[in-house]
C-alpha cells in the first residue's frame, strides 16, 4: 500500500491525482496531417520506414513561460486540440484557462465544490470537461465560461476522463472503480462498467472509439469494447508495477502506461507484448502521466518525482533531454498538438505551470 500513501493522505488526495492524458489534443490534429497522405501512399510502405527517418537527433526545449496562479497542487494540464488554449486544474475547485503562446492567464471556470483531478477538451476545442471530487463532471462552454452540463452518476470522486474523437462520448473513471460512458450532448450516463476494484486512474478511447483502455491502482490495465461494455483483455505487469496512467498511441496501435516501478511501457495490446520500456526517472508514489510528442521528433515525455521532466527517444529509449526548473514533483505534462511545445505542472511547493518550447531545427542543421 506504499504506492497509495500519497493518495490516502486527505490533504494531498487530489493533487497527486493528476491525470494528464495529453493526447486528446493530438487526436484532432491527426486527420488533417495524416488523413490525406495515406490514401495515395502505397500500402506496402512499412510504418517503420516512415518513422525511421528522424528529422533531428535531439530536442532542444527551453523554458518559455512560467504560469503562476494556482494556489493548490496542480493535477492536470491540457492543450486544446486547436492549440490556442491551455487548461489546467488542481485542488482548488477551479479550472484555469491560459494562452500558451503568451503565457497570459485568461479565465477561471468556477462551479465545482471540490478539487479537480482531470480535464479534457472536446475535439472542436469548444467544450472542456472537468472531473471533480464533488463526484460530478462539468462540461464547460469555453466561449462563455458557463457550465453546459453537470454529469451526475459517480458515487465517489471522479478521477480521470476523456472525450472520444467525435466528442459525442465522454468516458470517466472514478475512485469507486467504475468507468462510466456519457452522452455529451444530453449529459446523461449511458453505461457503467464495474471495471476495477480500486481507484480508476486513467481512461482513454482509441481513435474510432471502439475501445476504451482503463487502468487502476489494482495494477491492471483493461481494454473494453465501447459498444457492449465487455472486457476484452487484461494486461498486467509485475506486482510492483502499479499502473497509474494509460493511453492509446495517436494511431491507436499501442498503449503507453506509466507505473510505480519508475518505468514507462509501450504495449502492443493485440499480442500483450511490452515493446519498449523507458526508465531513468523516478516514479514510485505519485500518479504521473506520460505523453507522446510527435510534432518534431518522436518522443515520450513524462514528469518525475525528482522535480524534472524527462524526454526519451521513442525508438532508442534513451533520455534525450531533461527539463529542469520546477521545484517540486512534476505530475502533469502535455504536448502541444502542432507545435514543439510542452506544458508541465507541479505540485504543492512549486504550484507553477511551465511552458517549454523547442524553436525547431537550427539553420545549420
Amino acid at each position, binding site marked *: 500500500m506504499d504506492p497509495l500513501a500519497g493518495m490516502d493522505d486527505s490533504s494531498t488526495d487530489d493533487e497527486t491525482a493528476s491525470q494528464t492524458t495529453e493526447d486528446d489534443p493530438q487526436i484532432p490534429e491527426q486527420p488533417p496531417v495524416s488523413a490525406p497522405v495515406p490514401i495515395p501512399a502505397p*500500402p506496402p510502405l512499412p510504418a*517503420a520506414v516512415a518513422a525511421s527517418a528522424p528529422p533531428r537527433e535531439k530536442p532542444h526545449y527551453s523554458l518559455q513561460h512560467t504560469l503562476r496562479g494556482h494556489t493548490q497542487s496542480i493535477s492536470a494540464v491540457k492543450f486544446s486540440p486547436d492549440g490556442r488554449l491551455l487548461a489546467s486544474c488542481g485542488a482548488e475547485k477551479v479550472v484555469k484557462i491560459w494562452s500558451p503562446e503568451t503565457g497570459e492567464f485568461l479565465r477561471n471556470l468556477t462551479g465545482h465544490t471540490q478539487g479537480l483531478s482531470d480535464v479534457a477538451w472536446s475535439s472542436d476545442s469548444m467544450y472542456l470537461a472537468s472531473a471533480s471530487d464533488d463526484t460530478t463532471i462539468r462540461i464547460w462552454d469555453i466561449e462563455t465560461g458557463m457550465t453546459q452540463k453537470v454529469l451526475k452518476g459517480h458515487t465517489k470522486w471522479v478521477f480521470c476522463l476523456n472525450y472520444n474523437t467525435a466528442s*459525442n462520448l465522454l468516458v470517466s473513471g472514478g475512485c469507486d472503480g467504475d468507468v462510466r460512458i456519457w452522452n455529451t450532448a444530453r*449529459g446523461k450516463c449511458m453505461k457503467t462498467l464495474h471495471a476495477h476494484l480500486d481507484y480508476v486512474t486513467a481512461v482513454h478511447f482509441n481513435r474510432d472509439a471502439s475501445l476504451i483502455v482503463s487502468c487502476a491502482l489494482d495494477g491492471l490495465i483493461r481494454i473494453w469494447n465501447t459498444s457492449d461494455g*465487455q472486457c*476484452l483483455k487484461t494486461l498486467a505487469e509485475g506486482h510492483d508495477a502499479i499502473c497509474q496512467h494509460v493511453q492509446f498511441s*495517436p494511431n491507436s496501435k499501442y498503449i503507453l502506461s506509466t507505473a510505480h516501478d519508475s518505468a514507462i511501457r509501450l504495449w502492443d495490446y493485440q499480442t500483450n507484448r511490452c515493446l519498449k520500456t523507458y526508465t531513468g526517472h523516478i516514479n514510485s508514489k505519485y500518479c504521473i502521466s506520460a505523453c507522446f510528442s510527435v510534432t518534431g521528433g518522436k518522443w515520450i515525455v513524462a514528469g518525475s518525482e525528482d522535480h524534472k521532466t524527462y524526454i526519451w527517444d521513442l525508438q532508442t529509449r534513451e533520455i534525450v533531454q531533461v527539463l529542469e526548473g520546477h521545484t517540486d514533483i512534476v505530475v502533469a505534462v502535455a504536448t502541444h498538438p502542432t507545435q514543439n511545445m510542452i506544458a508541465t505542472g507541479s505540485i504543492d511547493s512549486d504550484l507553477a505551470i511551465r511552458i517549454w518550447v523547442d524553436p525547431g531545427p537550427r539553420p545549420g542543421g
Partner: protein
Amino acid sequence: MNESLINPFTLSHPTAVQTSLFAGAIFSRFDPTGRFIAAARLDGSAQIWDLETRGTIRTLDGHVKALTSIDWSHHSRYLLTSSKDWNILIWDLASPTNPPLRYNTLRFDAPVHSACFHPKNSQIVLALLSTGELYLCDTRKSHRTRAEILESILEDGEEEDENSGQGRARSPMTAARFDPSGKNIFVGNAAGYVLVFNTRTRIMVGRHKIIGAGSIKSMDFAKSGRRLVTNSSDRTLRQFSLSTYPTPLNETDAVSILETEWDAALKFSDPINRSAWHAMCYSPDGEWLAGGAADPAAHKIHVWDLANGGRLASALDGGREPLIHLHWHPLKSSMASTTNHGNILIWHCPSPERWGAFAGGFEEVDENVEYEEREDEFDIEDEAVISERKRKAEEEEVDIDTLLTGEQISAFDKRRGTQTPGHTGVSTPIGQPSHGDTALGGIDGGMLDLDAAWAEAEPDGDGPGAWKMKIIMDDSQD
C-alpha cells in the same frame, strides 16, 4: 483494425436484435461510416440518429409529404431526401446548426420515386420520378444539366421478343441505381428489363431481359460492383454477375449495346409463404444476402450464404411488428430493419462474454486440451541473458502515428466500395469466380479513368476528414 480483438471469430451475419430505436420511421439507412442512421418519417421529416449514443442529433424538416428515399454522400457530409412532394432536398451536415442548412433543392414535375448521389460526387444526382421518367441532374458549375435518360429504341424491328407487341413505347422505369463505381447507371423497368447507361454520356450500353421477372422493384449491388441482385414482382430475388460494358467516348459515340438475356445465377424466394420482398441487402463483404420478407404478420429476415451456393443460412424473427425496410451496416455484421410501427431494430452478432479477459495472461479454451510442455519451458536461464534478450527485442522500431496500414486502406476502400484498379483483388468477394477477375480489372482500370475523371471534376468538398459532425448540446430537460 480492432476487429480481431473484438470478434475473434470469423465475421458472421447478425443474429439477434441489439437495440430498438423508437424513431417513427418508414425506412432507415446507415451512413457510409456506420456511425449514424437516417430515419425517414411519414410526415416528410428525417432524423439522424447517433448509433454510439442512440440518440437523435439532427432533425431535417423540409418536405411536406412522405419521404421516398434517403441517400448519404460518400463521406456522409451530404444527405439527400426525396419526397412525394416533388422535391429532392440535399442537406449539408457540416453546418453547425440543427436543422442543418439546405445545400440544394431540386424540383420536379411529379412525385420523386427514388433518388441517389453519384458515388464519387454528390453534385450528381439520379432522380427517378413516379411517372417512370429518369433524370440525371448535374449541379456542378461547369456541367450544369438536367437530362432525361431514355432507353434507346431500335428503329428497325430486328428485335423480336414478347414485348415487341407493346409497340415501341418505352416501359416506365421502376428502379434506378448507380453501380458502386458510378460509371454506369442500372435501371430496372416495368417490363422486366435491366438497362445499363454510361453515366458520363448517358448512352445506353446494355439491355438485359430477365426471364420471368415481371416488373423490377429494386436493385442492390455487392460492394465490389461485380454482382447485382434484383427484386421483382414475381417475388423472387435474383443475383447476376455483371460483365464489363463498353465506354463511349462522347455523347455521339456509337457503341454496340450489349443485349443479352439474363438468367440468374442464383434465385432466392420463400418457398413456404411465397412472400414478396420489401428490401434486400448485401453484407459489406458480399458473403451474405439478407432479404426482408413482406409478411403482413411477422418480422422475418432471410439470410442467404452466398459463399455456399446461396443456401438459406437463417430466417431471423424480429417479433410481431411487420418489416417494411432493411439495410445492412456498411462495415459491420449489423443490420437495421424498420417495422411498420416505426421502430428501427438494430441487429448484431452477439459475442459471448469472455471471462478469461478479466485475468491477465489467461486464455479460455472451449474444451479440455492436453498441455504440451515446451522443450525449454522450465530451463533456468541466466538473468543477464534474459535482460539482454529483452533489450534486443526492444530495439525493434515502433510506429505510433501512421494512421492507415495496407489493411486499413483496403478496409477504407471497402467502406464505400470504390473500386480503385489496384484494389480489385482485395475486395473481390468470396463466392465470385476468381478467373477473369484480373482481366476484367485490367479493362476496367483503363476505361474507368475517363468516367472517374469526369465524375471527380469539381469535387464536392466531402473528403475523408474534411468535415465533422458538430456536437450540439441538447438542452431539453427530461
